[in-house]
């Protein structure tokens, strides 16, 4: 980071305010903590991605001949755990959220800066433990840790993995806690709830889920740990322990966790679409309240992961009904984004390409969710590749696309540099094509009955698996490109002014990269959320 070039050297900002390891490892500046998170989660993204490539290579042939069964089980378990707990959950809240939440509400920093640094250290300790688990033999419980398999029938580092996720969970709780208090108590004068950017609304909703859901994951993993270490077998079948009780506790957190992963992505897209359509977002209040609706209703639907697990008929119908209710806010958001583009002035910059890709792929992900919420269809497709395709469409097609959109959109603000536009568009296209080639065949695989987590499969599924593996290589290349040209842009990127996109929002009112205290003096907000009517009609950078 200290390689910022000479041109910006004379103006004091958060990157050159201080140098040396101490200034980074003991910082309480929310912007520096965001960069620390950026580096850590990118590291874990490539570890998880590496496991994914191994899985796809293994599935090229029906008989499992690249790795043994146990290794394959470890591969998909660690792919799931690393990607979910160490990339997807922290990605937008901890990187973009940490950087932007204080700036967007006009504050100098988050409510508890020291707790923010503690949150990063907990993430690093959890990550270190997970790395240790991986290097010393891995864990093969799947990311779901189902009992009694994880408590009584596995010899791998289950407790170590559970402890590492427990600690990473606390990091997530502290981030959520910080955002809730900051958004409630530290808004600039004039920044009413109705004038807050939608990115803040979705991060606020995400924090509600992080704070209310993560502790239940903590207790369920602790109970698994206690049963393995001290034989205090709350889920021990011999003592009448009910494996479904673990599933209830686990999914009570893990379904809202998928909303922790997608809501921030929706927030990013709600910022980008209006900026590149040069128009207010359509139905601001509905999109804002839809985020809160998703957060609240998201807690009533968890047992749609257990329709065939053995829960009672009537309880399954209750959860199926609520699962359809929670689909409505997501539908509202998609329709509002599309309506925002109507009669706008559309620019094709890279963030907008990613955002449009997000709308398409997230819609496909959401629509297949409607298949799964219906009890009859779920009995056939659950635990098959249809489910794998569904959640990858939402996590990779939705969340990672939105994360990359956000990174490209706010990179000028973070680094004071422009990324190379042509390369950006190329990467976006490669990722879009690679993604669809990888995961669309898996819908058909799932519908024709290929089960999940299979090391070897029956020959008739081979053709679609080969297609999917081909797609995954294209996707891998697509993900390497942004990392390369972002680093390249740090030294050779064009100088980005305060507001290269002509975007609305307090963060574009200050310099880029911003000074350590964000604003010379606390701004007073007198305008509505997306006042593109009185902003320049064209995107300065594109001209």
């Amino acid at each position, binding site marked *: 980071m200290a390689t910022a070039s000479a041109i910006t050297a004379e103006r004091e900002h958060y990157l050159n305010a201080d140098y040396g390891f101490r200034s980074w490892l003991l910082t309480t500046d929310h912007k520096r903590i965001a960069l620390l998170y950026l580096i850590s989660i990118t590291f874990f993204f490539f570890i998880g991605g590496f496991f994914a490539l191994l899985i796809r290579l293994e599935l090229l042939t029906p008989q499992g001949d690249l790795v043994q069964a146990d290794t394959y089980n470890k591969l998909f378990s660690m792919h799931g755990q690393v990607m979910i707990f160490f990339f997807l959950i922290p990605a937008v809240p901890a990187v973009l959220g940490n950087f932007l939440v204080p700036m967007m509400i006009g504050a100098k920093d988050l409510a508890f800066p020291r707790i923010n640094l503690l949150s990063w250290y907990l993430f690093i300790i959890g990550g270190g433990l997970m790395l240790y688990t991986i290097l010393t033999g891995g864990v093969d419980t799947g990311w779901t840790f189902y009992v009694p398999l994880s408590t009584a029938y596995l010899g791998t580092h289950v407790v170590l993995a559970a402890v590492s996720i427990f600690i990473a969970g606390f990091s997530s709780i502290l981030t959520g806690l910080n955002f809730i208090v900051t958004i*409630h108590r530290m808004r600039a004068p004039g920044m009413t709830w109705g004038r807050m950017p939608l990115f803040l609304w979705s991060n606020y909703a995400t924090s509600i889920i992080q704070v*209310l859901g993560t502790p239940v994951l903590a207790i369920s993993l602790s109970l698994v740990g206690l049963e393995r270490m001290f034989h205090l077998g709350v889920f021990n079948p011999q003592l009448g322990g009910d494996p479904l009780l673990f599933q209830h506790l686990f999914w*009570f957190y893990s379904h809202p966790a998928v909303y922790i992963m997608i809501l921030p992505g929706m927030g990013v897209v709600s910022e980008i679409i209006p900026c590149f359509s040069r128009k207010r977002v359509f139905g601001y209040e509905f999109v804002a309240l839809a985020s809160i609706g998703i957060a609240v209703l998201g807690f*009533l639907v968890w*047992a749609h992961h257990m329709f065939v697990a053995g829960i009672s*008929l*009537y*309880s399954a119908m*209750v959860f199926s009904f609520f699962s359809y209710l929670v689909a409505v806010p997501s539908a509202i958001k998609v329709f509002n984004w599309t309506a925002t583009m109507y009669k706008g002035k559309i620019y094709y910059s890279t963030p907008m390409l990613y955002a449009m890709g997000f709308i398409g792929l997230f819609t496909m992900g959401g629509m297949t969710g409607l298949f799964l919420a219906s009890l009859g269809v779920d009995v056939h497709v659950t635990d098959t590749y249809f489910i794998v395709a569904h959640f990858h469409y939402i996590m990779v097609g939705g969340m990672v696309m939105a994360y990359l959109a956000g990174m490209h959109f706010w990179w000028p603000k973070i680094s004071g540099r422009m990324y190379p536009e042509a390369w950006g568009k190329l990467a976006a296209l490669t990722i879009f094509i690679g993604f669809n080639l990888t995961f669309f065949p898996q819908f058909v695989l799932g519908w024709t009955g290929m089960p999940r987590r299979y090391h070897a499969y029956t020959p008739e599924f081979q053709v679609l698996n080969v297609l999917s593996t081909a797609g995954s290589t294209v996707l891998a290349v697509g993900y390497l490109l942004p990392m390369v040209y972002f680093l390249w842009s740090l030294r050779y990127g064009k100088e980005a002014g305060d507001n290269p996109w002509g975007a609305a929002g307090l963060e574009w009112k200050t310099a880029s990269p911003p000074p350590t205290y964000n604003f010379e003096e606390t701004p007073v907000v007198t305008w509505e959320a997306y006042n593109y009517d009185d902003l320049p009609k064209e995107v300065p950078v594109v001209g």
Partner: protein
Amino acid sequence: MEKVISAKLYFTVWAALMCLTAATAALSYVNMGALSPVVALVIATVKGSLVVLFFMHAKYIDVKTTVLVIVAGFFWLTILLLMTMTDYITRAWS
């Protein structure tokens, strides 16, 4: 400055809590059939709200959102308990 509450109030709340503990302990000897768990939990909830309202100053909070946080916490707990119990209670029906 937060309103300073008199020590006398704390002692009365403390006395009430001690009496309620004695009461629930004594009542456990009485065989009220289906009622005994209900009575025990009602007394526990009364004691709990005394602690939350007076000892934890929930009654004197000026920030309305903190009250909202407290209510949300207990509401989410009931979501977990009730929704999961719909499974256990109706499992024997089918």
